[in-house]
C-alpha cells in the first residue's frame, strides 16, 4: 500500500479525478467503485484557527487553504512489466496534484505512517 496527499484547485476537480478511478455497474444499475483505495476528502483545510467569544461568535475568521485537499491510501497499484519489474505510480492524472510533506500532515490513516509509505 502507498499513501499520497493531493491538492486540487477546487472540489469539482477533485471529485472528477476520484470518479475517473475504476467503477462498474451492478445488475440493478448501481454504479460502484471496484478499486480498494481509501479516499479521504479533507476539503479546504484550516491553516490558522479562528477565534470565538463566549457566545460562540467569531471574533477572528479562520484562514483556510485555497486548495482542496485529498488524501489517498492506495491499494494494489503495483504493475509488473514483461521482464518482471514491479513499478508503483500514481493513477493517470493524479501525479501532478501530489504534494510532498516532511511530516505526517493534518490527517493520517490510523496506524499507517505517511512518511514510511508515501509514494
Amino acid at each position: 500500500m502507498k499513501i499520497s496527499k493531493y491538492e486540487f484547485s477546487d472540489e469539482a476537480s477533485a471529485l472528477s479525478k476520484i470518479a475517473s478511478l475504476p467503477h462498474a455497474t451492478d445488475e440493478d444499475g448501481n454504479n460502484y467503485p471496484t478499486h480498494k483505495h481509501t479516499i479521504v476528502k479533507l476539503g479546504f483545510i484550516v491553516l490558522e484557527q479562528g477565534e470565538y467569544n463566549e457566545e460562540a461568535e467569531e471574533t477572528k475568521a479562520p484562514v483556510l487553504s485555497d486548495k482542496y485537499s485529498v488524501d489517498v491510501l492506495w491499494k494494489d497499484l503495483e504493475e509488473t512489466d514483461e521482464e518482471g519489474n514491479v513499478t508503483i505510480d500514481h493513477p493517470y492524472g493524479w501525479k501532478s496534484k501530489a504534494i510532498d510533506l516532511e511530516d505526517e500532515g493534518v490527517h493520517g490513516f490510523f496506524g499507517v505512517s505517511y512518511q514510511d509509505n508515501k509514494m
Partner: protein
Amino acid sequence: MATPSLAMIPSAYADSKVYSVLPNNGDGDFTFDRASTATRVGQNGLIETVLTDIPRLNYDISNGVVQSCPSLLLEPASTNLVPYSQTFTGWSLTNAVETPNALISPDGNLNASKIVTSATGLDVKYTNIPVAANTVYTYSFYCNYVGGLGLQGRFYDNTNGANIEYYDYMNQIEEGKWKRVTRTFTTPSGCSNIQIWYLAASSTFPVTAYYWGAQLEALSYATSYIPTLSGAIQTRAVETCNDAGNASTFNSTEGTFFIKVNYINTTESFRISISDNTSNNKIILATLNNKYYYEVRAVDASISASILSNIPQTTNEVLLAGTWKQNEFKFFVNGTKIGEDTLGNSPNGLDTVRFNNLSTNQPFYGRARDIRVYNEALSDAQLTVLTTL
C-alpha cells in the same frame, strides 16, 4: 439437522484470514482486508488496537456484561474529525476545571479527563472543525457520570454564525459507569466549520463527569473508536471479507443459506452472497428498502426468487435463512416463514461466499455471528428452529 458444508462462527483468525469451522480443510476460510489499524472491544471488555489486516473479533458489552462469544465486526471507512480525542488539548474551558488522567478509561489506561463545572455559563468547546454542508454527522464520546444535573451538548455553525442544536444526554449516561453517548445531526446549508460544546444547564453546581474518546464522523451512526492522539485526524480503512469456499463446497442444485448478524444501521442496503463470482448465479440474504430480503439469480442473472419481508430493518440481532431448489425457494426471518416462490431455476456453479454483492458492491457492515451454508433445502420445521432467536 444436516451438517453445514460451510460454517463460520467467529472464533479464529490470522493475518488477512477469518477461519471457518467447516469445512476444516481451509477451503471455507475468508480472505480479510483492512489497510489500517482499528480498535475492538477485547475479551476483557477493554478497547484495544488491532493491526492492519487483522480481523476484529469484537466482544460486545450488553448491560455492562462482556459477552462470551465474539462477533466479526465489519465497518466502512470512517474519519474521526476531532483532534486529540482522548484529552482536552486545544479545547477552550470556561467556568470548568479539567483534571487530566483522572480515571481509568474504556481502554484500561489512566487517561480519562475529569470535568467539574463550577458555575452557570460553563462551556467546554472545540471551536474549529471543518465539515461539509448539508451532511449528516454523528458525534460520540464516552462519559462516566459522577453527579449534578443538566449535562448538555451543543453544535454551533461557525460559517453562518448560528446555533445548530443543543441536546440533553442525561438519559444516555449512568452514574459510575462508562457509557458511549451518540448524537446525530445535519450541518446546515453553507456550513463549513463547526464548534462542539459540552455544557451544563443546572440549578445546582458542581456538575461532574469524566470524558474520553471524542469522535465526529460523517456518518449517520457511530462506528468503533478511532483515536487521534497526535492532533491529526485519523481514518480507519474499509474492511472486506470474501472468497470463502470453492466449487466443491456448495451444492448449486439445492441448499440453505443462513446468517445471524447485526446490521450497522437501519437504512442502507447490505448484502451477503453465495455466487459464481458473477451476477449470473447468486443467492443473496440482504436488506432492501429498510426490510429483510432474499433473492436468487440463476443462469443469466434471471431472478428465480425475490422475497421481501415486511419486517423493518433494525440493528438488533437478526436470523435470516433462504433455501433454493428447482421451483422451490423459501425465506425465513427470526423463526417466521416470510414467503415462498414456486417457479424458478436453481443457480449454477456456486463457488464463493462474500460479505457483499460482488466486487465491492453493497457490502455488509455490522457484526456477523454465524454464517452457514447447507447442501440441502431444509424443511420448514428445521428452518423455524434454525432462525428462532
